[in-house]
């Protein structure tokens, strides 16, 4: 063995740690991947999966530790060194150039040419060879933009193969694929494996994980907590390992009686990627939406806010049947408004003052003496800013210069400044520290206490449970369950993954704060 200098491991990670300010994302992680195997990595949001994968791909610089790929030591935080050693990372957001052909995409930046002239035959021959290797039937000159997501993903894999990469990292590859496409993807992965490539497969989709991987490794709080062959795992065991132990909710906030009148009632809601039988929210009630990334939480909220067209759906506001809002403007005038998830792109005009952004959409409210001026806007916004704990002396600052927490407060302020019945908040705590979060929760509660209904979502399940009176769970675009106060993360995950037997198996609960880790958005 020692005579043969061929390294025995495709990937050898030893003692990898990554420290962010205040958070230890990775803590002394060591593991190896053999050539020709598929290792799945699972864990809760914020367990450190993304950081680990990005460190291997060189997109993150680890604080300590060593990474070897096929015997080559990587330079930390250097993507070039990783790719030269054979690492290819396929992100959830694909990097296909839609207007180019399939073959040009596979050889993007490396099209064979002679004196700057593309050698078409050579390109075609190379492409065909790669296509055969992965069993692809995509025609060389098809426009890539016209391909399905699954086929675009396949092009990415082919690109990795074409560049001689032997360690392919896939981040949530099944997130936007249907069952047949997942099966095809898995066949490609098995082919790759048979040809000596190794695959790191990161996914929330436990069925897919157990289907394709040779081994599964579980990360929790930046540490490898378990690793075993796929045959030894069950979905239930995986969830338990991801959580460590069954956590309980820590009930806080108001004790809602069922005597309050219903503010909003939604029935038979359907839209592309949204399906909900029925939901009624009472005055003063805060209802949370839980679900994995891509489970349709945002779409549901947007559909209710009139931002996406619905196919069917009926709505009652304060007991009266109303037309489903066909636009955000109609929703606002009916008393329904959404604070969108993507604050920068969907919520704010970044080069405008904070006060102006609070007034956005309702400028007439700040009008005095027939005019709206910067001074009037500031004076008008002052009490609103105080309500949402936004420092009034920063009302003149441009929205783009504010922190994420303060930007979120501007959106909350906008909702508070107008007479609403139903407040919809999509990921209002995303990217915030604990302090800002608690201010958002307080504002949410006080708004409900004034008789509004609140529907909100977060990707941190524990957080949703802690700050809602009830929780609905989305899975693959459907609202699959409604859980009462006191439900556990385990219950939510069981519904999220569709393993209902878990719900009863973990009825016994222990308090845990393990899921309070700040989530890393990919």
């Amino acid at each position, binding site marked *: 063995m020692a005579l043969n200098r061929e390294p025995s491991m495709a990937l050898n990670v030893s003692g990898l740690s990554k420290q962010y300010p205040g958070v230890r994302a990775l803590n002394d992680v060591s593991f190896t991947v053999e050539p020709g195997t598929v290792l799945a990595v699972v864990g809760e949001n914020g367990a450190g999966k993304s950081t680990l994968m990005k460190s291997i791909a060189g997109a993150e610089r680890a604080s300590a530790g060593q990474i070897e790929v096929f015997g080559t030591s990587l330079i930390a935080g250097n993507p*070039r060194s990783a790719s030269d050693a054979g690492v290819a990372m396929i992100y959830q957001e694909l*990097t296909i150039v839609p207007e180019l052909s399939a073959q040009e995409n596979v050889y993007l930046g490396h099209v064979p040419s002679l004196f700057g002239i593309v050698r078409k035959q050579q390109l075609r021959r190379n492409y065909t060879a790669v296509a055969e290797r992965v069993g692809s039937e995509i025609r060389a000159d098809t426009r890539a933009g016209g391909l399905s997501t699954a086929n675009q993903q396949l092009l990415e894999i082919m690109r990795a193969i074409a560049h001689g990469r032997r360690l392919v990292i896939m981040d949530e590859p099944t997130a936007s694929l249907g069952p047949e496409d997942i099966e095809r993807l898995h066949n490609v992965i098995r082919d790759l494996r048979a040809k000596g490539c190794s695959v790191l497969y990161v996914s929330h989709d436990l069925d897919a994980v157990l289907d394709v991987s040779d081994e599964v490794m579980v990360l929790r709080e930046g540490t490898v907590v378990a690793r075993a062959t796929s045959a030894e795992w069950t979905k239930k065991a995986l969830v338990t390992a991801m959580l460590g132990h069954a956590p309980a909710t820590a009930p806080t906030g108001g004790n809602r009686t069922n005597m309050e009148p219903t503010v909003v009632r939604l029935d038979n809601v359907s839209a592309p990627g949204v399906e909900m039988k029925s939901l009624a929210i009472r005055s003063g009630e805060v209802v949370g939406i839980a679900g994995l990334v891509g489970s349709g939480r945002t779409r549901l909220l947007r559909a209710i806010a009139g931002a996406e067209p619905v196919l069917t759906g009926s709505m009652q506001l304060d007991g009266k049947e109303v037309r489903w809002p066909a636009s955000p403007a109609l929703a606002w005038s009916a008393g329904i408004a959404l604070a969108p998830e993507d604050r*920068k792109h969907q919520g704010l*005009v970044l*080069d405008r003052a904070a006060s102006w952004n609070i007034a*956005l959409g309702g400028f007439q409210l700040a009008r005095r003496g027939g005019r709206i001026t910067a001074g009037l806007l500031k004076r008008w916004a002052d009490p609103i800013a105080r309500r949402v704990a936004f420092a009034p002396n920063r009302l003149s600052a441009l929205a783009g210069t504010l922190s994420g927490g303060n930007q979120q407060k501007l959106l909350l302020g906008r909702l508070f400044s107008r007479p609403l019945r139903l407040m919809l908040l999509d990921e209002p705590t995303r*990217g915030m520290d604990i302090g800002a979060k608690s201010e958002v929760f307080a504002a949410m509660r006080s708004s409900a206490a004034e008789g509004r209904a609140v529907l909100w979502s977060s990707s941190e399940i524990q957080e949703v449970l802690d700050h809602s009176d009830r929780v609905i769970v989305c899975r693959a675009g459907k609202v699959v369950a409604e859980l009462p106060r006191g439900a556990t993360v385990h219950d939510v995950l069981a519904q999220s993954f569709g393993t209902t037997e878990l719900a009863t198996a973990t009825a016994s609960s222990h308090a845990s704060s393990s899921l309070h880790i700040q989530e890393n958005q990919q």
Partner: protein
Amino acid sequence: MSTLTTTPQPLAAAFAPPLRRALSEYGVVLALIVLVIIVAVLQPAFLSAGNVSNVLAQWAPVGIMGIGMTYVVLTGGFDLSMAATYALAAVVAATLGQTMSPLAAFLGAIVVAGLVGLLNGLIVTFLRVNPFIATLGSSLIITGVALLLTGNRPIQVVFEPFTVLGRGSLAGIPLSALLMIVLFILGGLILAFTSYGHNIYAVGGNREAARLSGIRADWVVASAYLVAGICAGVAGTITASRLSSAQAGLSGQLVFDVLTVVIVGGTTLAGGKGSMWRTAVGVAILATLQNGFNLLDIDAYYQNIIKGVIIIAALTSVDWSRFSRPRKASSSKSTQSSISTDTL
């Protein structure tokens, strides 16, 4: 992670020295003052009442169209068809002026132009056609209609009151110039102080945020084209009145002058940033330049060259501050971009 690296740009702008900020904000005003002084020193007749009122009257059509174009550009759009609408309005005014009272003819022309503008707006919003393409196409259509209406013959109006708008004056100030000034003030007040005006800025600044905040974004955008159409109608009417005739091929490169006054003033083509006083300053700069050239007897061909240079200079000056900034950020920027390109 991604949140750490997003907004160095506005932060840097916030710390820019006050002088530099004032200069980038009001530099156009300074440029206008310098220009006026130069021309006035070289040719004192420039500031004579007769010359000033002449220049104002001459630039009234372009200035009035600049008002409408400012609205459209602030929404992040573009109206190439204004010149064609202007010519159509002139032709309609002259045609109606044959039989109707001048007032009715003028109003009729403005209504037609407004409808054309609204149609542009609906094409841009509800049919989701790129504004450049939409108004390029409608420009051809409008010109075609005007040619069909007239057979490309000039239409004369031989009725003295018809010329009052274009040639008349009040207290020594030409009526057309007065109208331009009034419309500038009106257009500016609406933009700066009404919720409609702020909605214009909102849709130009971030269309999706505006929409989700409850603004009827499509209608706000469409309305800007309506304003542009009305302005082109008023401008066309003034010209028809002044010439007491109109012709379908009247407009020439007028639309570029209109766009130039908006851009030179500092309203950005990306939308959401700018104001009406800027367009007024833009008109003043262009008018001073052109009149100065004429007074100083500079070849007309040079005028085009200099106008072109000014447009480009006006657009580049917006970004100068970025280049003059110390290059501290460049190293981190390069590593960041290599992440996205090199990992695959």
